[in-house]
């Protein structure tokens, strides 16, 4: 696997950008933060009675409620700043007279960078285009990718509240494993997938359907659960910058547990439009031993699309 002489430079730039982002991204902090009681891969990988690695568990930082989001501040007219983790703590302080009613309550998104919503949005767009590990499309599709990217507000169906689909959905936040199947659960739109691991082939009907999640079957290759998915529509995208796919796409997802870390990786085979299979960026999620409640991801309803007069997005 040779990547050319520019690879180290790109990696260094990417690392620098990544490190600046880590200060700003709540989700990333939650994902990267070691969950309690989950030190590292030095922990033996637990196994089920049939000897398979036990993927069961809650993974990463998703699915829970409060914490790590920057909290609520109250800024007094004299500039004094009170910091609270939660609005209820602010309310209690207000009731107790520790904060004045004249204090401005600040509940902004802490992951907006540069202290400016507009700059943050533009920067997110730039980052995804510049450092996004793009799939290599056949030359005759380059203009289409560019067109879709430039008109993403209309063309990217996630803007219209369609599901992201596999593999854009990413790794699950919780896994339930039985001897015959594996259930993958996602925070995004309260989604779940049931992956049979009993050796059955693709369903002859479902595998010809055109769905966002496709028809999936799983098999164990050593300690790695390999999920093959076919039967996709061509509505979802692989990623934000116009990365479309066809309904002949085949996705191989790989899940591997090492100690208390879950590794997720997906490869996209779409030879109708891609020059080579696309390796999605791998993810590594720590075991999350917290017990915060799982909260509903509210439904998505678009009100804005008809009011968008520019093509800007981020």
């Amino acid at each position, binding site marked *: 696997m040779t990547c050319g002489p520019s690879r180290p430079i790109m990696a260094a730039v*990417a690392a620098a950008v990544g490190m600046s982002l880590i200060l700003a991204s709540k989700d990333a902090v939650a994902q990267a933060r070691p969950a309690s009681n989950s030190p590292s891969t030095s922990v033996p990988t637990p196994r089920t009675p049939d000897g398979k690695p036990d993927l069961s568990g809650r993974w990463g930082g998703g699915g829970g409620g409060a914490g790590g989001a920057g909290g*609520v501040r109250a800024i007094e007219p004299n500039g004094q700043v009170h910091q609270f983790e939660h*609005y209820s703590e602010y309310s209690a302080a207000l009731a107790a007279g520790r904060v004045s009613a004249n204090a401005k309550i600040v509940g902004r998104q802490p992951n907006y960078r540069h202290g400016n*919503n507009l700059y943050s949005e533009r920067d997110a767009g730039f980052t995804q285009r510049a450092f996004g590990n793009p799939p290599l499309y056949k030359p005759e599709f380059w203009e289409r990718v560019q067109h879709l990217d430039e008109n993403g507000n209309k063309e990217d169906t996630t803007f219209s509240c369609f599901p992201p689909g596999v593999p854009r959905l990413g790794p699950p936040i919780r896994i339930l494993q039985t001897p015959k199947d594996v259930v993958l659960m996602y925070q995004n739109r309260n989604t779940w997938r049931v992956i049979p691991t009993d050796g059955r082939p693709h369903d002859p009907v479902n595998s010809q359907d055109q769905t966002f999640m496709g028809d999936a079957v799983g098999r164990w290759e050593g300690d790695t659960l390999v999920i093959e998915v076919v039967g996709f529509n061509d509505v979802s995208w692989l990623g934000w910058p116009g990365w479309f796919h066809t309904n002949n796409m085949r996705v191989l997802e790989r899940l591997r547990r090492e100690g208390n870390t879950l590794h997720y990786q997906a490869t996209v085979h779409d030879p109708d439009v891609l020059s080579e299979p696309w390796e999605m960026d791998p993810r590594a999620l720590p075991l999350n031993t917290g017990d915060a409640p799982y909260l509903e991801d509210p439904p998505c309803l678009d009100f804005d699309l008809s009011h968008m007069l520019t093509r800007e997005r981020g």
Partner: protein
Amino acid sequence: MRHGLAGALIVCALLWAAADLRAHHAVQAAFDQDDHATLTGVLTKVLWINPHVRWFLDVKDESGKITTWTISGAGPGGFRDIGISGRDVFKAGETYTAIVARARDKSPNGYVLTFILPDGRKLDLWHQYKSEGTAGAGAQ
């Protein structure tokens, strides 16, 4: 060194992948952050939905005509993470003032910068501040 670089790349991978699902916003395409409106009216409904929370405010003009404004904000997850819920802070039937970035098409839609709650407290939900404690556009 190799581990350090690999670690940095994994961090980048986490960030990019996380960013992809989060970055579904095109606030600037629909709203002009340099065009503000100050709206005072009765809050009739709050929709705690993705991708943006929606408030519906009945605003009466000088002639008595009522216009229902649809006001957008951040996603519900962000509010939930800091404990701001629909019924705690936003009560239907009460009067709120919203300072908003107006819709570019001049329809009665806006993206909230600041709410003034019924008891007069200010709740600031928009960045664009030179320094903490110094209010910028829309917050004074």
